[in-house]
């Protein structure tokens, strides 16, 4: 039974680490957007076939097909 004199302090250290991790997570805004982070794993990191000519300042009438201009 005297083993608890060793085990409980170890458990306390674990709890302290858990609390520290929780504080760090809250402060680094990880709880600010819960529905976004949960699905980010599904998305590709890089989009397929990125079109290099997609410069904003270029007039983009080609892509505005169907716009009643």
């Amino acid at each position: 039974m005297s083993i608890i004199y060793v085990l409980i302090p170890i458990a306390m250290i674990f709890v302290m680490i858990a609390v520290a991790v929780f504080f760090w997570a809250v402060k680094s805004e990880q709880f600010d957007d819960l529905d976004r982070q949960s699905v980010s794993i599904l998305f590709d990191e890089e989009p397929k076939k990125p079109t290099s000519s997609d410069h904003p300042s270029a007039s983009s009438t080609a892509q505005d097909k169907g716009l009643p201009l």
Partner: protein
Amino acid sequence: MTVLSCFHCNEPVLTGNQFVTHINGNDELMCCPGCQAVSQAIVDAGLLSYYKFRTEPGSKQTALVPDALNAFSAYDLPEVQQDFVHSKDSIDSVSLSIDGITCAACAWLIEHKVKQLSGIQQVMVNSTTQRAMITWDNTQIKLSDILGQISRIGYQAAPYQVDEQEQLAKHNSRKFLLRLGLAGFATMQVMMFALALYTGYFTDLDVQYRDYFRWVSMIFATPVVLYSAQPFYFSAIRTLLSGKLNMDVSVSIAIGGAYVASCFATVKGTGEVYFESVSMFTFFLLLGRYFEQKARQKASVSSSNLHKLVPLTAHLVTDNNIEEIPAKKLRLNDIILVKPGEMVAADGMVVEGHSSINEAMLTGEQMPIDKQANSEVYAGTINIEQPLKIKVTALGQDQLVAEIIRLQELASNTKPAVALLADKLSRYFSGTILTIALITYLVWHQISPDDAFWVTLSVLVATCPCALALATPTAVTCATAIFTRLGIITRKAGVFEKLPKIKHVVFDKTGTLTCGTLSVGDITLLSELPKEQVLAIAAALESSSRHPIAAAFAPYVDHQFKVEDIHHEVGFGIQAVINGCQYRIGNAIFTGAEENSAKQQIWLSRVIKDQNQPIAAIEINDNVRCDSLLTVSELKQRGLKVSIASGDSSGHVKQLAQTLAIEDVHTGLTPEGKLKLVKQLQQTHPVAMFGDGINDAPVLAGADLSVAMGSGSAIAKNSADLILLGDHLSRFTQAVSVATLTNNIIRQNLLWAIGYNALILPLAVTGHVAPYIAALGMSASSLIVVANSLRLLRFKQ
């Protein structure tokens, strides 16, 4: 026949297969050119994952007006940017509010679309708050380009005005989450040792182990008492200093007393310890506060998002040219040029030009008002036909809009306060508990002085107001979640208690009961031309006009009718040559027709040798919202009185009242007049007011409960308790149902909390409550309250 739905936004496709986008090897059907353009932009950017992983359909696109693509240029003015852009060297950063985010896939889509642009340093989109944080290099890309790119994929981004509560709410939410988390961790640990100690009541636990467990519990409970429970102490001290009582007073006494006493017991090795009760107590109470805080934060975020910063710019006329400057840099007697379709930037006097101005936002009058030299114009109104030169006569606080805002502030100060049931209860509750605790102490002091302190402590701990503190916040949090699902934003506390009490509903007309957009009604043909042709000619004539009437003809445009030689006669109508024949559209005088004052009509005529030949009389209606009739009749069924209070003085209001069967109609009211009317009605019973314009702001601030339309003006939304996002009026009756249900749940919760306390109090007073019974009762009563509140979420629309 099945109606196909749009691949992008899931709305039914009523346009056949005109609009198609090639996605992933299939031709997908779209409902409108807007959705087609947006989906095409998404495909071209290679962001197909959006369609693969989205959990909600996209938002319906209204076809992009070419003007919208240039409207962002004002955001590049340095004077405008200094309000919301943070600059460091050449790196700028801005926080944008984005409309149209429906799920996490939208956030991903926006991030990757923006990342593809050159000069972007960092993009972070938060789909919960619907905001984006963007950092860019201003030597490579302009803010207007970024906003333009976001609008290309179907989202409207704009800087926003941070609600003054929001910063505070965010900070508080985070603090509460930290306190709650710590209390949670500690409570779990303390509870484990407490269980070991409980077994000590029934079996023999060695004293050395018992004391060891107590010491460990004390170590865990200390941060909870010293850090997590701080808000209760501060609130208690504040209340006591103002000479009142509230729940936090008895809570603080219980937490402080139980903790100190338990520490003594631990050090001395005697008595009882209540560490687990103290920790759990704090945890449950914080849970309730955290819910409240979260709901408050959500409301403040939504209302900040509704406050888009639209930079008001003016074209200043100088000796040699015209330059665009922010409105706040204008000075008295400056001459500004207001082009057709632009907003007037300051109150002023017309010095040159002749046009008509749409003042609906200020007055509720639908029809534009004729303005010529020496007429007064007001900031925030919209110029329709011709360019006007205006001399600025008032700025800032002296403008008509500022007058209305002052009236609004005055009205909100006299708004009837709502006393929350839970607050009233908690005052009496604390007083009662403290009195009983004192009596208990005095009585036990006579019987057995040694036990007096411990019994009194158990009274304070056992009669914990946990369940009482959780009763309202949990119910309100669930109800707020339902409101969000219905598209209703609650901006103020106490809405749920006020809603069922409303006995009289007053509606503004324009933009509330009606859509605020005109449409074509009955057509009386006066010649051999068929109806389709008449409409096509009228549409062709109106195609270049910005008059609200012109928008009504937009659906009838036929490109076979070519318009040449067009003349706008301000205040009269339009004349043009179509396919070699001269036509006029406009009022009776202009077209040589006979006036019929009962209806709002315009006439179309052919001009042959300077002679008008009327072809058709076209009635113009302001479309009644599709659910206005339903809403009004439902409100009447519930026994509520319904009135209309409108700034419009035309016969149209009476006509609308007949359609909707509303007897009590007030027309031609100024903002003050509306406020007076509602104040008068408030003498007899609580009044709810619906509005959307600037002219409704004061009355919205003064009514018992005010509802603004999501499409309304920022000032109106600012003084509203509820905001209807999708402009569905019928949501209001559902809101009343939800609020009634919520009130019932709150009452049940409070009844249960009081009942539990009534049950445990005699046991505590007679000294029969051991720490484990106190802890058990506390958690059971709190869980029952939470479970009861969760029943609300089963509400079906």
